[in-house]
């Protein structure tokens, strides 16, 4: 693609939405209050696995201000269960436990009262009679035939298990100079937004309409909510003008919303359910991937990796929504940024008595990238080769794009070598090595981490049919509509809520670019789910591509209409005019022109001046299919997963305190190529934030359960989110390889940083441990874990 010049795109611009947040004028779900609003508190299971023998709520009901207690039996009778993303129809989930509790913290009853405080008081008075059962907490144990079944009707704990072989894997392994194998462990963490999930629901009996305000980021949320509540889709109206206080994938409180909607309808009053922090961590069903990788690598003595065998076992917890599908997205980048000839991939998803997972930033790609980069480091170590040399030897080269990997996805564009070299230059890599070596001479445990990772973007649905043949979804379209009023003011309507991605800025910038109008003057509004055009919400780093593409498509239609109206007004053929700054002028005589305002007025008031075939009013909408989307996977599972591939090369320096095991990071440099950045400050912000999140996943964040299945990480004192003390100053080095598939050459970037930081930090820690002849492939590498590991080395060497 030729280098484009832009007027507004890729320029510094203050994000539109920031203005309200810095004034404290965001509109989050907890900020909404309706007259007569009731509040929900939840009774949670203290057991990881138990049969519910009975629930006594008499004392609770006697409390002044109490309205109702709802149990799982009543809810199950009045709603349809939600089902997993894989074909496991007997693994049913209701918002409240029904007959069994399957994880500690699972909601058993909902208590509704005039205030949250009264509801909490009453919840403490609800007595539940449990018959404790033996839980299963280990995913490998859960696979055994004699393991307790979390869902007995399903017959086993294995929700999904499939092995794909792409290419001549066995032949490559047999022919390779060397092979190696190892296990990598990605423990359970999540995105844990600072705003917990909340929902407010109001049933309007006169209109037979349920209004819902929620901190939601979820494709087809309204449809699924209506289905579970046994309502037609047009009886649920989800308001997308609610600011979402962070999500990064997890804000999908379908069960919360079914519960609140059911209660609002039953009680005839607005009902609010706001998680508190413990509920969010324990019963919010929003934990993340919990994965064991068994990796095998076939490689040559020259460091060239020939083939991979990857077995990924994921512990999805007690219920499965989209969790198993998080094993699916990595199929689209299963060999990372490397030329690998053949890949075998076995994906296994099992249930255990833990909190369910939700979609987490990257949808399984960050753990996979960690396993892949660990494999590269192990190859380097096995050969005594430099880690950079192995990467350089295996990276796909710029001239090889578009490049199709064994599992069927074609990478759109990239220049991985250049990005890596730019990052190394910015890091002053030789100086960094000297710094490490000097630190080592002083007795410190110092290391440098390197990670080269892909960031698939464009949020397609291809993993759905791949993991469930009954699901034939081949589009995850996105839409945008634009209106220009009779005085020329522009309103852009988007069809989803946002959780910090800057979609209002994105839409205004793109529309401004196409129509050549100052984005500052463009108003962006949000439809509700009944007035909205199709959207699949901001998942899979898709909105720059999909909302940006849809907005550009609608704007181009308007530009064509404006040009036609202007040409007609000037009495010229369309070919004899040009569009400039919103006006239409004669190519021959630029002084002869129809102004933006005059054209808007014609469109709205002067039908007699409209050219034939042009509708009155100036509005256009565009619905965009995902580029490269639209086809089902082949019988061998080969599939084009996402359309666009961004690339990140991380270089990080780390020192480990020998006593405490604390890892100090920095300098931290990341080379990043996500094509054309619509708004560089927004892209950079998400990248910095993704790295901070990756630092958490690499070093601190873990949802822990003890051996009896008890949950141990319900507060921010047990689950450690990196603060400004733990996150070093990060330097981003930009590079731009435009995508040939998108409106402006943009790629997605919402998962940037997080997809490579855990791999890079693991690499740095292992480099630091190498002099002790220690290695570790387990995240998070908490201070305790590293301290204990280092202590064993000292013992063995003394």
């Amino acid at each position, binding site marked *: 693609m030729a280098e484009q010049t832009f007027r507004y795109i890729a320029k510094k611009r*203050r*994000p539109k*939405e*920031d*203005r*309200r*947040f*810095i*004034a*404290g*004028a*965001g509109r*989050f779900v*907890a*900020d909404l*209050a309706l007259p007569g609003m009731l509040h929900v508190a939840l009774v949670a299971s203290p057991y990881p696995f138990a049969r519910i023998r009975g629930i006594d709520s008499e004392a609770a009901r006697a409390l002044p201000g109490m309205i109702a207690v709802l149990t799982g039996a009543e809810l199950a009778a009045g709603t349809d269960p939600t089902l997993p993303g894989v074909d496991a129809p007997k693994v049913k989930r209701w918002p409240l436990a029904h007959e069994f509790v399957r994880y500690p913290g699972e909601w058993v009853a909902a208590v509704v009262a005039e205030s949250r*405080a009264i509801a909490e008081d009453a919840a403490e008075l609800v007595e539940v009679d449990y018959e404790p059962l033996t839980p299963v907490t280990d995913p490998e144990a859960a696979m055994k035939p004699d393991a307790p079944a979390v869902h007995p009707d399903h017959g086993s704990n294995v929700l999904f298990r499939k092995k794909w072989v792409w290419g001549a894997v066995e032949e490559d392994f047999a022919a390779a100079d060397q092979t190696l194998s190892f296990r990598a462990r990605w423990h359970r963490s999540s*995105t*844990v*937004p*600072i*705003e*917990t999930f909340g929902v407010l629901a109001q049933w309007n009996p006169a209109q037979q309409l349920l209004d819902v305000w929620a901190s939601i980021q979820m494709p087809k949320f309204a449809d699924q909510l209506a289905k579970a509540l046994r309502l037609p889709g047009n009886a649920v109206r989800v308001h997308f003008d609610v*600011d*979402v*206080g*962070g*999500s*990064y994938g997890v804000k999908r409180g379908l069960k919360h919303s079914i519960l609140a909607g059911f209660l609002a309808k039953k009680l005839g009053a607005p009902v609010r359910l706001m998680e*508190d*922090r413990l509920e969010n961590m324990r019963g919010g069903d929003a934990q993340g991937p919990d994965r064991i990788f068994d990796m095998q690598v076939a490689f040559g003595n020259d460091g060239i990796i020939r083939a991979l065998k990857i077995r990924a076992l994921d512990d999805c917890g007690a219920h499965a929504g989209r969790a198993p599908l998080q094993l699916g997205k990595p199929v689209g980048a299963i060999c990372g940024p490397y030329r690998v000839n053949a890949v075998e991939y076995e994906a296994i998803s099992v249930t255990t008595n833990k909190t369910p997972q939700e979609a987490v930033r990257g949808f399984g790609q960050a753990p996979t990238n960690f396993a892949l980069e660990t494999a590269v480091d192990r190859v380097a170590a096995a050969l005594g080769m430099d880690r950079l040399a192995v990467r350089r030897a295996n990276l796909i080269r710029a001239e090889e794009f578009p490049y199709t990997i064994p599992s069927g996805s074609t990478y759109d564009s990239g220049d991985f070598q250049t990005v890596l070299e730019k990052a190394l230059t910015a890091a002053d890599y030789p100086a960094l090595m000297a710094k490490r070596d000097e630190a080592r001479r002083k007795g410190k445990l110092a290391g440098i981490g390197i990670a080269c990772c892909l960031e698939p973007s464009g949020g397609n649905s291809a993993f759905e049919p791949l993991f469930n043949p009954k699901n034939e979804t081949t589009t995850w379209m996105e839409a945008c509509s634009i209106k220009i009023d009779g005085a020329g003011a522009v309103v852009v309507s988007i069809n989803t809520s946002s*959780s*910090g*991605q*800057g979609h209002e800025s994105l839409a205004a910038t793109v529309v401004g670019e196409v129509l050549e109008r100052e984005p*500052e003057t463009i108003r962006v509004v949000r439809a509700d789910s009944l007035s909205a055009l199709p959207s699949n919400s901001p998942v899979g780093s898709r909105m720059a591509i999909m909302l940006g593409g849809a907005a550009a498509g609608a704007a181009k239609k308007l530009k064509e209409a404006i040009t036609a109206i202007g040409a007609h007004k000037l009495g010229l053929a369309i070919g004899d005019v040009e569009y400039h700054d919103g006006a239409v002028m004669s190519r021959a005589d630029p002084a002869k022109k129809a102004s933006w305002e005059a054209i808007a007025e014609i469109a709205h008031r002067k039908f007699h001046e409209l050219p034939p075939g042009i509708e009155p009013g100036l509005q256009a909408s565009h619905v965009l299919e995902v580029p490269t989307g639209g086809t089902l996977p082949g019988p061998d599972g080969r599939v084009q997963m996402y359309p666009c591939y961004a690339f990140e090369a991380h270089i990080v320096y780390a020192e480990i305190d020998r006593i405490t095991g604390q890892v100090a990071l920095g300098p931290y440099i990341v080379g990043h190529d996500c094509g054309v950045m619509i708004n560089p*400050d*927004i892209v*950079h*912000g*998400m990248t*910095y*934030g*993704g*790295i*901070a*999140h990756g630092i958490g996943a690499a070093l601190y964040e873990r949802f822990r359960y003890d051996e009896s299945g008890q949950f141990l990480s319900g*507060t*921010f*004192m047990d689950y450690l*989110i990196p*603060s*400004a*003390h733990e*996150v070093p*100053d*990060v330097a981003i080095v930009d590079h731009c390889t435009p995508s040939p598939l998108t409106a402006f050459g943009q790629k997605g970037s919402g998962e940037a*940083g997080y997809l490579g930081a855990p791999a890079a930090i693991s690499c740095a820690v292992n480099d630091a441990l190498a002099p002790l002849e220690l290695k570790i492939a387990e995240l998070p590498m908490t201070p305790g874990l590293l301290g204990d590991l280092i202590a064993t080395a000292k013992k063995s060497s003394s």
Partner: protein
Amino acid sequence: MSQHDIALTVNGRAYRGTVPARLTLVDFLRDHLRLTGTHTGCEHGVCGACSILFDGQPMRSCLIFAVQADGATITTVEGLAPDPAGLSVLQDCFWETHALQCGFCTPGMLIAAQALLNRNRAPSDEEIREAIGGNLCRCTGYKQIIDAIKLAASRLQGANAPLDQKGAGSHG
């Protein structure tokens, strides 16, 4: 539940109210005064989203009862700007550097940063990290927040410079 009469000043305005003993200050600000800019993220004093200035000191309003605020002077995010339509220098700098994404931690972050700048007009990076170290942000990785506070400090140091350099943004 015992009820208590309290009188306090919030954002320059005097309030009187009757509150139950167990009502936290953040719930009083949000539910009674409808000042919803102050957020609750953990309600156990770690995340800092509920930070306010309490007699000039940054404090977690989830860890204080409303009755303890009797007689206090409180500033919330809504009170940082010189007038309801405007922005403070610090707020404007947050906009300039895009020191936020979802905006949920932002009010607490602004309060922590304002408390720092009130006592230190030339903070070092380390002092800035210390000042916001008790406020968790999940979106930004803190970089653009630190940039914003540094920018605000430099603008405030130039407070005697001509008006157009004071940090009233052209987009404001």
